[in-house]
């Protein structure tokens, strides 16, 4: 198999594989089939997923180094600004600029 064909085959396989994971719940639980339990699960999942994603993003931070200090400062900027102004763009951009400043200096 030449290289481009191999890449195309990989792309196809990955596309199908990814799509199956996203499609599954819609195939398993049709519209109008919602039970009280399923409803409860789908309502509680977003706050849990968000908590998990934040911890996941931070799991590579080396503790006991300067990295943890500036990561904390950047998180504080994002959190503080967001509680104060509730402007998602402003909170994200400001925190990221602070973080980039520390990483690059």
């Amino acid at each position, binding site marked *: 198999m030449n290289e481009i064909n191999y890449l195309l085959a990989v792309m196809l396989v990955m596309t199908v594989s990814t799509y199956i994971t996203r499609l599954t719940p819609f195939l398993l639980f049709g519209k109008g089939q919602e039970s009280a339990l399923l409803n409860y699960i789908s309502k509680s999942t977003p706050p849990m997923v968000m908590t998990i994603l934040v911890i996941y*993003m931070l799991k590579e931070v080396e503790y006991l180094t300067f990295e943890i200090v500036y990561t904390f400062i950047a998180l504080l900027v994002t959190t503080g600004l967001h509680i104060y102004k509730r402007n998602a763009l402003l909170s994200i951009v400001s925190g990221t600029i602070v973080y980039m400043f520390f990483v690059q200096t």
Partner: protein
Amino acid sequence: MIRSALKISLPILFGFVPLGIAFGLLFQELGYPWYFASLMGIFVYAGAAQFMAIGLLSSGIGLLEIAISTFFLNSRHMFYGLAFLESFGNWNLRKLYLIFGLTDETYALMTTIKVPKNFTKERYYFFITLFAQIYWVLGCTIGALTANALSFNTNGMEFAATALFVVLLIEQWIKVKRLLPFIIAFIASFIALFFFIKHMLLVAIILSIGSIVLLRVIKTKSNE
């Protein structure tokens, strides 16, 4: 509606473009023509899986292995659809695309925002999903095209994705106002980190959902 969806999707722009650029830059090291980075973003459209693909492609691994590892890497997405069984509307091309575009970021954003009253949910979601993918493909393409010519120092830009999830976490807190899901997810995350670091996301999600279901069943039992 398009303007409102564009505005509300902008936080994803700041998460996706830097991450896409990072992908494009790395992908170019494999030596394929630049537009394959864009094609990956258009068809595969899964951040973590695309990064994994770079490693797998360079090792020339078999297709079956790629199918299985992609499936497991993305299997957390199986839980994401649960939130949209109703609101993605009837089966049509739009719904198929909404499902295709259900990434961490779109899931996070769409479960957090309130769709303005005068807009149809599925149409509003469609534009958000479309814009998000455009940002991603844009990032992948820019990264691949500038692989050899990038002069702007993007170090640290990846923090934008973290900041996006932090913002959405705060928004979830304002919306939900119940401590329990957050605490459960927090504990589950650390258990997953300590014991299953390679599959942390999936294990943490399964543990969390398992725990709230268990708590719920116990509660209904004790009420009977």
